[in-house]
Structures are given as C-alpha cells and as structure tokens.
C-alpha cells in the first residue's frame, strides 16, 4: 500500500511541477491543482497509513492520528480558495494582456513556430 501511495504522490508532484513550469496560464493552473492534490495526500500520509483505524478513540481496535486529517482539511479549504483566485487572475490577465502567456507576451521563437504550423495547417 505504501509503495502505491508514494508512487501516486510522486507522479502527481512531478506532473504538477512540470505543468507549473509551462508558459501558459491554463497549464500552470492545472499544475498548481495537481500540486495541491499531491500535497493533501502527502499530509494525510504523515500520520502513517493505517487500515480500519478510526480517528475517534474506542471505535476500533487501532486508531489513527486525527491531526493530519485536520491539517488536510485546512489545506484543502485554503487550496480551494487559492485555486479559485488564480483562475480568476488568469482570466483577468488574459483580458488585460491579450494573451494567456504568464509573461504577458508570447516569446519570439514560439510565435514564429506557431505561424509556421498555422501555415502548414492552412
């Protein structure tokens, strides 16, 4: 179980960081969302993984640490608010700058490449 769990968190984090490093705001927002999923899973695991362990005493033979669950809850709420904000900001930036690049302008090289592919498509 631990291996699969660690693998999932790792994959999510890697994809998140890869997407955050892209140039368009949309992919960056998706990357940030993936990162926050990874972080939530990671925090959850910091109380050790346990099967059938209730977070309340006396409900099961083994109990699990309730604190990481509280932390995850807080992190989810905050992450949700931040994602909402960044989505709105990305739309505002698209409207203000006229494009969806994080730097507000599409770099030279990319535009020429785009034009070429447009011509090919045309």
């Amino acid at each position, binding site marked *: 179980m631990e291996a699969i769990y660690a693998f999932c968190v790792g994959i999510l984090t890697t994809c998140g960081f890869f997407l955050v490093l892209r140039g368009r705001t949309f992919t*960056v927002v998706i990357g940030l969302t993936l990162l926050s999923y990874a972080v939530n899973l990671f925090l959850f695991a910091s109380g050790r993984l346990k099967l059938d362990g209730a977070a309340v005493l006396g409900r099961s033979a083994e109990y699990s640490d309730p604190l990481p669950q509280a932390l995850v809850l807080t992190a989810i709420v905050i992450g949700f608010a*931040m994602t909402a*904000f960044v989505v709105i*900001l990305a739309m*505002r930036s698209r409207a203000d700058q006229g494009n969806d690049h994080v730097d507000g302008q599409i770099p030279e090289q990319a535009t020429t490449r785009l034009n070429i592919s447009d011509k090919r498509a045309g």
Partner: protein
Amino acid sequence: MSHLPILPILLPMLAAVFMLLPPLSNSITRHRIFAVSVMVLLVVASALLLLTSHQQGTQIYVLGGWQPPFGITLVADRISTMMVLLTSVLGLCAQLYACAGDDKDGMYFHPLFMFQIMGVNGAFLTGDVFNLFVFFEVLLIASYALLIHGGGKQKTKANVHYVILNLVGSSIFLFALGILYGTIGSLNIMDMANKVPLLGEHEQALAKSGGLLLLVVFALKAALLPLHFWLPKTYAAASAPVAALFAIMTKVGVYSILRVHTTIFGENAGELASIAIPWLWPLSLLTLVFGAIGVLASPSLRLTTANLVVVSAGTLMLAIAMQREAATSAALYYILHTTLVTGALFLIADLISKQRGKAEDRYVIARKMNHSTIIGIAFFIAALTVVGLPPLSGFVGKILILQAAEGMAEIAWVWPVVLLAGLACLVGVSRAGTTIFWRSAGDASSDESISKLKLTAIALLLVASPLLVVFGGPIIEFTDLAAAELHRGSAVIESALEGGKQ
C-alpha cells in the same frame, strides 16, 4: 492575565468584517475614519503587549484552553511583540497615506488592508508551525488582492508571477510540514525544539530535508538570492501604500527563518544543529551583491527602493547566519530601521512620480516639481538613513552588524561585502536624488498639490529614524534581551510546556 495577546489578530479581523457590513460598507469616508481609528487602537494594543511581555515575561495565550503541545498557542515574547508593534506603526502610516486618495482606485482597500495586517500579526505571534502556514496564507491572499488594487497591465502581470510563485511556495511549505510532523510528531515550535535532538538516525535525514524545505519557503518570502527575482517588479508595480506595507512582508520571511532555524534547528538541536547556516552564508552575501547591482541598475526610484529591500534582506540574513546573540540583536535593530525607512521611500517615490507628470519617478529630465523643497528634505533624510550614513539609524544598525562579526573567520567576507554594498547604494541613491531634484527642464505646473495626510504619513515614518538613534540605548538593551531569549530558549520552553496559562 488578559486576552491581550490575541488582540493584534482579532482587532484587524473584526474591523475588516465590520467594514464589509452595511453601516460602513457603502461610504469611503466611514471606511477611512473607522480604519484609521482601529489602526490607532492596534498600535496602542501592540505597545501594551510589548510592555507586558517585556516586564512580565513571555505571554502564552492558549486558544480554547487546549494545553500545549496539543492546542494552538500564541507566543508573545519580546521579538514577536516588537514585530507586531512595527507592523502596526507601518500599517498606520501606510493607511494614512492611502486615505489621501489612493484607496479610491479600487474596491475594498481598507478591509483587504486589515486582513493583511491580521495575517502579518498572526504570523509573528503564532507558536505553531501549521498556524504559521495558515497566517501566511491569510496575508498572501490579502496581498494578492492588494497588489492589483487600482488595476492596470503592469500590476496584473506582476501579480500573475507573484501569485504563482507563492502558490508553489505554499505547496512546498505543506510538504515540509508533512515531513516534519511525520518525523518529529509535533508542530508546536517549542515542542519541536525539545524533540529534534531525540530523533533517531533515519528520521534525522528526513527532518533535515523538512527543515531545509522550510528554509526554501521562507527564503522565497524573504527574497534570498535565487528566489528574489519576483520582488523588484512586484514592489515597483504595487500602489504606494501597498508597497510600503509590503516592506514588512520580506521581514515575515526573515522572522520565520530566525524563529525556525534558531529555535528548532538551533545550537541545541544535536545532529541537526544549524542545518541552514552553510546555505545562509553564501546566499546572503550573494543577495547583498545582487541587490547592490540592482540598486545601481534601476531606472526608476521605485525599482531602486525595491532593490534596497533586497539589500536589506541580504544584510539581515547575514546577521542571522552569524548565529550569535549580538548578531541577532543587531538584526532586530536593523529590521526596525529598514522596514520603516523603505516604507517611507516607497511613499516618497509616489509623491515624486505624481509631481513629475509623464516622467513619473524615472531617472530622466522632466519638468520641475512644484514642492521640491519639502519632498527634497524628506528624500534626503530617507536616503541618508537607508544608505547608512551617520547620524541616522541606518548607520547604527550597520555598525552593530559589523561589530557582531568580530572574531569570526567569515569577517573577511562580511565587512567588505556589507561596506561595498553600502557604497553602491550610496551611489545609486545619489544618482536618483541629483537626477530627480536638480536636472529639470521647464517650469513647474502649479496644479499638483500635496495632501497634508500624505506628508504626515511620511513624516511619521521618517521621524522614527532619529528616534531610533536617540533612544538607541534602551532599544538595543531590549533587542539584546530578545536575542538572548531566542538563543537561550530552554527556560522559556520549559515554562511554556508546563505552565501554559490562559
């Protein structure tokens, strides 16, 4: 024992909420009166808190009566209360300045401003790393909104970078907290400090990576070298009162490094003692160098000031890297000085740019300023202070830091770099002054007047500098005590864990 320690968080929070409700929500005049009176109250409350913690020792406020290390605590010791008072004073001045008209550029300036103050105060007062994260988020989300206050292309662009960087920073913060909780088993700073030396060998490596991840996050906030590129553009794009308030934001990062890497991973942490120091030394020196180059290369006063913030962050980190009581004390004195003066410089830059028409605050020949005498005097005082020339507070702060380095092997690096960076700042700031005030063409247009409120705000910030020198003795005594408290924290740790009182 009263509820005093929580007031610096509660007051701005309630004020912000009230300002969104009907009797106050529609009128900017009511907003202004209410906000300024709350800020004055806040200054009084923070000053009282400082006095209490100075005279009666560290105040521990246990929220909801849940005893530490399980409950959430607020720790009002000398350092945190000093930072809270500093925030309140800076906030009051920035707000006075904003009341002269900048708050009308967008909606809800004052409530957002209050939330920001709440977040900053909370980050200083909290005794728990997870709540440090929560308050970071509070201050960040308020700062995101404040940064684009007024709107415009530049602000949106700066804000996109700022928000994305800080969101990634928050994720790393949470990863670090997860690692630390998983290994140490606690998030209360004092409890962590007790448990870190007891870690087993396998857990040590994990805890070390957690601690260093935290350093990355705080370095991002404090604008340490590889992570400082966001700062100059962001601060230069923000509107003046917001930029002035943001002068405290890098100090939140500095304070967190001081707190976490002196209390938890300090000298008593066994195998994990001082894990951040090998990184802090070179990075802080390089930050100083790059900040100084930035000061020399800036094309406008706002960018110069923003780079001066980077220089001050580098200087502070250098003092922290020394890991000595004397150096920490010097850093605390320097924080007081640099926060207030960079705040003032941002406000002065705005005054100048409003007076010079299209040239704004760029270093080009422009029409004469209408009130060049009064602005010139303010600029002169601020420049002397920020560069660190005698007789003002910058000089004292720098001398203290240089003296603290005495007897260390690294002194060969510290002295030349700090002094040369000072020289670069002097050159940069003099160039700014001569271009803006002496190289003008044409007559002044007489339509631009300066509001009294703006001048009051700047005067309040600038008067702090001579006061810091005149009352230097008691202030340094205070910072000495604060630094001793931080470095020899064991007595405090015991008292907090056993006798948490409400």
